[in-house]
């Protein structure tokens, strides 16, 4: 029976891999991001964007900070946060925000997102 016990012991970590998740950190990053945007602190908000999102956001001749402030993202308290692996989704009362965990912490990959239904990807004003 011993090999069976070993197999069962190996299955437990397999089953729980990726289950434990701290939702507090991405929720705080999302809150800080939305607060910075609504306070028109574009530089501070851009610092919380994923690098690729910050690069893609501005039009020609614009800075990331200017582009972000112009978008007019809506602030609201966080109502839910889920984390799966290195990805997170934070919902406020007025927005849905997607984040990714980098070496330096959580950064916003997409914000100003509205659902398109039918299990399609959200349509986001900021997107990486």
């Amino acid at each position, binding site marked *: *029976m011993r090999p*069976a016990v070993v*197999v*069962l012991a190996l*299955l437990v*970590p*397999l*089953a*729980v*891999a*990726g*289950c434990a998740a701290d939702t507090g950190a991405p929720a705080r990053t999302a809150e800080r991001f939305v607060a910075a945007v609504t306070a028109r602190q574009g530089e501070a908000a851009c610092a919380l964007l*994923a*690098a*690729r999102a910050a690069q893609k956001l501005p039009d020609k001749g614009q800075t990331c900070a200017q582009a972000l402030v112009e978008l007019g993202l809506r602030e609201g308290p966080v109502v839910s946060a*889920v984390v*799966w*692996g*290195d*990805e*997170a*989704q934070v919902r406020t009362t007025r927005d849905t925000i*997607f984040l*990714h965990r*980098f*070496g330096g912490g959580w950064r916003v*990959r*997409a914000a100003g*997102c509205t*659902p398109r239904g039918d*299990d*399609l*990807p*959200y349509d*986001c004003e900021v*997107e*990486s």
Partner: protein
Amino acid sequence: MKRFLKENSLSLFFLLIFALALVGQAVAGNGQYNDRQLVDGGQPISVVEYVASSDFAVDVAENWQSEYLQFLLFIVATVWLVQRGSPESKEVGREGGESDEDQMVGRHAQPESPNWATAGGWRRAVFSNSLGWVMGTIFVLSWLAQSVAGLAANNSERLAELRDPQDWGAYVIGPEFWSRTLQNWQSEFLAVASMVVLSIFLRQRGSPESKPVGAPHDATGVEG
């Protein structure tokens, strides 16, 4: 020590190549994962972090469940189903659980029979089906582990695609879970069917999985 190695060489060989293959899977899987991270703008992770991830867990579990299902079905199906000419099958006409005398249980037990084969009641019933129950339990737990780790890996992918995550119930009736499951099952079932049929006509000298080289094609249940 030398004697131990000789007498257990088959188990030790497979445990060794299992461990080597698992390490290889971890290293190669980590490389593939980091390639994807590069494309998606994420950061590479170490092998240790990868081994603790749901991506590695689902890849391991989906293969485990299918292998244990394969052997469970082979063990249980060969109680009732036969294949004339195959060394993997009992002789035609011996289908079923067989008599106590054939199975050496109860008063037909031998002096060296396991205690639970000699005993009656629930102990004999449990021991008589213990191989199937343990393989079946490992199959179910592996499949469950696949569903949980698969849910985590799939939800991470869905969030990266800016889609809502799914709950477990939606995942296990969805195409991702069944695609992973059935792609493994079909290969296992084909391998068993091939082994049962090919061993009627082909031989591997010295292998107990084959009939003796000179055994006739229609000899059933004869192992070399």
